[in-house]
């Protein structure tokens, strides 16, 4: 009896401690963002009308609701700068996810087909750069892509171009940086799916006279769809809100939403508009996040 009770008590603590931590530091902050996105900008410290004042009782509650305004959302929809920013982010995320899929698939396929003896080492080699700093990896490309950098030197030496090309502060540079940084995130889920592929299915297709390319598109690709979905979501969602890569490699004229939010917050010190931007961005990302979450839950149930 006491045994059972102490067991319950320990388990309850194990659940409660991280639960409370996440409620206080993950969920509550979102509610605050939501509230501030409905507040008016004031020139003060902090620069928005105050939060709910419960000490004022019913009167405070009434004031709280009276002070809510849609002004920031109206700003968001009236200025096309913001709409373009969202569209730009979605476009960059969609195109880079497609490029990632195209170049990561052959690598993941080769990894899955590699001799067992080498597989562990090769997977480690793909994961290794993920452990070095994100910032360092983006900075490495600033080195290469700058005006008199190695890429231009190589291109001029090989007579591919006559004069150095401008790479930095272009969309191309942003795509290169994103594809480079997210490469392991795409390879690993694809590898996990392709590794489980049943070889006998490929043999059966070959025995029945299917040419290799047809087997690939009719057997391999459909069977790796879970990996394709997982990798694409894992890349697409964070790329939409990416800040560091477009900031260091892109130009400020075509800002992604992460940069716009950053500028509103740090540059213009307009916290309510920055919050509204975050709320809308979150609404855009909720469907893909829910799909990702559901797939993870299903995968988890399957492995149990």
């Amino acid at each position, binding site marked *: 009896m006491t045994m059972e009770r102490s067991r319950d008590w320990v388990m309850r603590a*194990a659940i409660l401690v991280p639960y409370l931590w996440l409620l206080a530091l993950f969920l509550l*902050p979102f509610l605050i963002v939501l509230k501030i996105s409905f507040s008016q900008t004031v020139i003060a410290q902090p620069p928005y009308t105050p939060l709910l004042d419960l000490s004022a009782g019913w009167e405070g509650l009434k004031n709280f609701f009276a002070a809510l305004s849609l002004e920031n959302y109206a700003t968001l929809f009236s200025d096309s700068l913001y709409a373009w920013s969202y569209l730009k982010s979605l476009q960059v995320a969609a195109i880079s996810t497609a490029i990632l899929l195209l170049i990561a698939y052959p690598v993941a396929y080769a990894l899955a087909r590699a001799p067992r003896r080498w597989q562990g080492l090769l997977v480690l080699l793909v994961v*290794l750069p993920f452990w070095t*700093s994100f910032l360092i990896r983006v*900075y490495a490309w600033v080195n290469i892509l700058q005006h008199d950098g190695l890429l231009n030197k190589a291109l001029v030496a090989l007579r591919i171009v006559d004069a150095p090309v401008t790479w930095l502060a272009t969309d191309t540079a942003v795509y290169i940086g994103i594809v480079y940084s997210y490469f392991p995130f795409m390879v690993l889920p694809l590898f996990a799916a392709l590794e489980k592929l049943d070889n006998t299915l490929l043999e059966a297709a070959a025995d029945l006279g299917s040419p290799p390319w047809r087997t690939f598109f009719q057997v391999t690709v459909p069977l790796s769809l879970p990996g394709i979905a997982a990798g694409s979501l894992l890349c697409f969602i964070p790329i939409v809100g990416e800040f560091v890569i477009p900031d260091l490699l892109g130009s400020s004229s075509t800002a992604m939403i992460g940069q716009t939010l950053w500028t509103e917050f740090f540059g213009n010190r307009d916290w309510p508009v920055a919050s509204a931007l975050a709320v809308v961005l979150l609404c855009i990302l909720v469907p893909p*996040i829910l799909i990702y979450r559901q797939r993870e839950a299903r995968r988890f149930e399957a492995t149990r």
Partner: protein
Amino acid sequence: MKRFSTINLAALALGLAFLYLPIAILVIYSFNDSRLVTVWGGASLRWYRALFNDSAMLEAASVSLRVAFLSASAATVLGTLAALALTQRFRGKLMFSGMIYAPLVMPEVITGLSLLLLFVALEFQRGFWTIVVTHTTLTLCFVAVVVQSRLITFDRSLQEAAMDLGCPPLRTFLVITLPLIWPAVASGWMLAFALSLDDLVLASFVTGPGATTLPLRIYSEVRLGVKPEINAVCTIMIAVVAVGLIAASLLTKRSAAGAQLGGRV
């Protein structure tokens, strides 16, 4: 016996070249004697010497290491508890697992902004400790996922046997469960440490006066263009990570070999 086919070998070679060439170039140029970052002026350790006289950079490195150590340790405890919770049934589990998985893909600008607004609302002094708390919150989710994947594959009958024989739950955890899942806990800690050391966006939001982490410092320099000194800092960071990972893989290999041996006996 499977062997590499030419096309697969080519795909792997190209993929790995794409991953490693930029880093290799950065490392090589950190030993460049020339002040011009694009002209090779012979090998030298000049920028490393300059680095060790740069007190702001050293201070930033020390802040980063302390933040990473504290937040990774807290995240490992909380994340392991969260992983244990995820294997149980309880009310509100759906929301709990949602809060574990969402931060993994949530854009950092949103997480950073929301935590900053929380600290402002609570009138919390921003600086070192707000960065620690922020990093703990993000990385505990990563630890939870890593440890959970270990918990669902390990043999739970050992744990149940210990409990049935009257071992108290806390002791069961420390004597049976923890030794079995410890490789996952250790790699969770390392992952948390690396993520904390790496973070720029969250730290930018929640930092205050006097708490500049290494990425914040590097970022403010990089925005002004490429500097040879930054190449040197990056090379040292890469070297530290590489040594840590090799040590970790040797350790886990040994413990895996030990576990196999134990299994046979």
